[in-house]
């Protein structure tokens, strides 16, 4: 074997350098030990930022995204395996970790396939081309005679391990536009329903979630919460607490209050006891859920005309239809409450958490604690599914605060169910008002849409600790976030349909509850309103809902999607008391196309008077990486959206949130779950489109349109079962 220098000379690959990746850590390797950590800058332009070729022919894929249950891991592994010709069971994945994986911002917005998977694919195809050209140089054989198989380069009768070619190091060449993407030219693995490899670990009860991590000497913490958002801590009776068995420390920083104990159940008991001993300021939450609609419209708003197009003058004398819809605050409501572990040792803070964005969180926690960001290290470890920005960042920030209080010890902070329900940032409340006119042929001439909404994201992306829940309670007083992200409120607000003229006005208020990004953001409510309104317009025009939509669509993929749904449901007959309804949207007007139908049964029962019996979905996400993963996400989105639509609404009174558990915030359970059926329109020649949030809006509209069809009454305010 030649030396590296002579080999490089022989290979003539002057532009190829080598690097050793930073020290990798792994939860399964690290049990019981302090993790090695890195604060290396990862350059996403480098091939080896995205993958590591292992000595035994295995491949490690590196992503800056998090596994949230959406199945991103297997999709990213699949695209890499295809390009580097490795069997899928020889591929592993490294999820978001500061100093180790590229900074890919937040795992959100259905963007992970479009961004991370495509970054990995490009890097993997480059790696393949680089390896093959190096092997060709080495053997003197033409590139056309080289082939790559499970970490071996086969050239004529010769065979090399790929690590032999790169001499045990990694390819640090810049990523370029590869000559060939195998997924486009060969497509053997991509597009197939490869099972998820993480399922085996879960089903055997192996260590997988952040909740499962254990460290020697780890202490357990609980936070003691105020009754409502703005209550400050007035007094606390601390007497005799410290004498109680298991007590380690009471942490009071401004109005942030927490307790650390030896054992977890002791921490819970302390939390309950301290809660009784606290005196908080009374700061009522304004308004009530019952008067929410009028209250929200009365708030000062930041108003803007977001879009205005078409010819308004020609519209005259047509039939005018008006309707006002609304959507309450709803929860992410993760099945497992938020959890994080942190340790502060040798002036370095290490955190394990289920955040969707480890890099932005690192910077924000560093600012909150006044630490240089180089001294903060975060490893993403899966938690319970989050469906958007829940308390994952908050719990990490709180664990970090507590870890600084007891250097050298791992602190595990676990939120209780009541805390998760009461303190997560909710999906925003919205009011959606539509007015449209139809011409004599029943085509939409004009459409004016005005919406009222909170902003839709208060993620800690700017580095401002106000976006972390403890930020507002500390002595420093980082305050509260501003009104949130306007762009989220108008997501999918412009209808995909052809209209003579269209105008969109949005009014962004700061409502009474803490809010952030929930799956689909404004698209859920906007599509719900638009698609119910389309049914109202169709009725006015005397048209079938399918035909009316098709008559207003120009996008062929949208048309295909709806037609396929029509075919799927052509045999469905709604019986007495039943209703059939549809909904459609292209998510963000730029991502997946999704059409959903629902068959609903209504009865005289007081509760559960509307039950969704069956839902059908069609999704076109362009090039489909894993059809079973895509179906799974779409099925889940349909059922989750049906639950939001039928049942869900955050409740509160002046003294605080009153939706505190699964009885006071019910969600759809097995007895009322619809049978779901999803078909995928695969377009291997097209780019892949984000899919994870595509079903939320269409499903809501399908359910409500079906109920309206069953009852003859238009329902416009969510949830259905108020």
């Amino acid at each position: 074997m030649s030396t590296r220098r002579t080999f490089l000379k022989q290979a003539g690959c002057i532009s190829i350098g080598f690097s050793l990746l930073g020290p990798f850590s792994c939860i399964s390797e690290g049990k019981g030990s302090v993790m090695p950590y890195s604060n290396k800058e990862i350059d996403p332009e480098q091939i080896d930022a995205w993958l590591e070729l292992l000595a035994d022919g295995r491949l490690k894929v590196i992503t800056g995204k998090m596994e949230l249950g959406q199945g991103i891991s297997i999709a990213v592994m699949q695209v890499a395996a295809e390009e580097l010709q490795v069997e899928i069971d020889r591929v592993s994945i490294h999820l978001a970790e500061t100093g180790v994986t590229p900074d890919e911002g937040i795992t959100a917005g259905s963007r992970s396939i479009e961004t991370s998977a495509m970054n990995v694919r490009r890097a993997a195809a480059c790696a393949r081309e680089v390896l093959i050209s190096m092997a060709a140089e080495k053997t003197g054989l033409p590139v056309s005679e080289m082939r790559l198989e499970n970490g071996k380069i086969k050239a004529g009768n010769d065979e090399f391990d790929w690590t032999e070619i790169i001499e045990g190091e990694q390819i640090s060449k810049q990523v370029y536009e590869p000559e060939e993407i195998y997924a486009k030219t060969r497509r053997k693995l991509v597009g197939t329903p490869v099972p998820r490899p993480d399922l085996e670990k879960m089903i055997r009860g192996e260590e997988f979630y952040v909740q499962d991590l254990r460290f020697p000497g780890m202490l357990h913490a609980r936070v003691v919460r105020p009754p409502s958002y703005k209550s400050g801590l007035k007094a606390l009776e601390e007497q005799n607490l410290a004498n109680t068995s298991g007590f380690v420390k009471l942490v009071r920083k401004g109005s942030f209050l927490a307790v650390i104990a030896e054992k977890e159940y002791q921490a819970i008991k302390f939390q309950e006891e301290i809660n009784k001993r606290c005196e908080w300021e009374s700061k009522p939450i304004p308004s009530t859920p019952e008067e929410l609609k009028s209250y929200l419209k009365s708030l000062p708003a930041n108003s803007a005309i977001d879009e205005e197009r078409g010819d308004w003058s020609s519209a005259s004398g047509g039939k005018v239809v008006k309707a006002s819809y609304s959507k309450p605050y709803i929860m992410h409501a993760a099945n497992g409450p938020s959890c994080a572990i942190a340790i502060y040792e040798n002036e370095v803070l290490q955190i394990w958490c289920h955040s969707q964005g480890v890099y932005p969180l690192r910077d924000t926690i560093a600012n909150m604690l006044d630490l240089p960001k180089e001294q903060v290290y975060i490893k993403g470890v899966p938690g319970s599914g989050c469906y958007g920005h829940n308390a994952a960042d908050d719990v990490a920030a709180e664990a970090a605060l507590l870890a600084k209080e007891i250097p050298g010890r791992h602190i595990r902070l676990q939120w209780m169910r009541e805390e998760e329900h009461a303190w997560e940032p909710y999906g925003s409340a919205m009011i959606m008002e539509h007015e449209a006119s139809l011409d004599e042929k029943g085509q939409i001439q004009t459409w004016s849409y005005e919406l009222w909404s909170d902003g839709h994201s208060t993620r800690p992306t700017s580095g401002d600790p106000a976006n972390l829940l403890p930020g507002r309670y500390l002595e420093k007083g980082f305050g509260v976030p501003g009104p949130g992200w306007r762009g989220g409120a108008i997501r999918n607000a412009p209808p995909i349909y052809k209209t003579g003229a269209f105008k969109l006005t949005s009014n962004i208020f700061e409502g009474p509850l803490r809010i952030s990004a929930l799956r689909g953001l404004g698209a859920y409510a906007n599509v719900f309103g638009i698609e119910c309104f389309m049914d109202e317009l169709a009725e006015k025009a005397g048209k079938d809902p399918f035909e009316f939509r098709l008559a207003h669509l120009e996008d062929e993929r949208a048309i295909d999607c709806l037609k396929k749904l029509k075919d799927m449901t052509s045999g469905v007959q709604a019986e007495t008391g039943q209703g059939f309804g549809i909904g459609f949207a292209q998510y963000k007007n730029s991502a997946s196309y999704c059409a959903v139908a629902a068959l609903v049964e209504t009865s005289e029962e007081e509760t559960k008077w509307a039950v969704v019996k069956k839902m059908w979905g069609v999704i076109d996400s362009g090039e489909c990486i894993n059809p079973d993963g895509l179906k799974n996400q779409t099925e889940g989105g349909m059922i989750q959206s049906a639950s939001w639509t039928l049942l869900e609404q955050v409740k509160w009174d002046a003294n605080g949130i009153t939706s505190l558990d699964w009885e006071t915030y019910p969600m759809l359970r097995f007895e009322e779950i619809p049978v779901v059926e999803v078909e995928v329109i695969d377009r291997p020649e097209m780019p892949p489109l984000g899919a994870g949030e595509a079903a939320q809006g269409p499903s809501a509209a399908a359910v409500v349109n079906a109920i309206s069809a069953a009852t003859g009454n238009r329902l416009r305010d969510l949830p259905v079962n108020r």
Partner: protein
Amino acid sequence: MSSISFYLNGRQVSPDVEPSTPLLYVLRNELELNGPKFGCGLQQCGACMVLLDGTATPSCMLPVAAAEGKGVVSLEGLAREDGSLHPVQQAFIDEQAVQCGYCLNGMVIHAVSLLDENPDASDSEIRKAMDKNICRCGTHSRILKAIQKARRS
């Protein structure tokens, strides 16, 4: 502190704990199991279920003292000695009946208990029993398929 003895996945254990500590915390923290999950602490979601003398039981409020002398089987204890999965576990893999997987423990444990008791459980009996278990990802339809599949095997 006192020692409570029970059988965990066929092996006698005697953790030294406060008898009022809910079984869940003893299983997770003292006995280092990952299967049973903390979901609500209120017996409302089923994430913490274990088989207590063969019956699916939430462990989040049950004092460990109540397990004295009893048999507890967790998710970890379902696989056969040769490592092969219990038919219910295998059916969940076959149907890819998971998204985030946090509820999986309770779903599998409850399905095992249900089918042990009623191997011919009808679809509506399955739905009725599983109504105690919450899934937030909306994986219900696959979970039902997995249980139906396990019922047949």
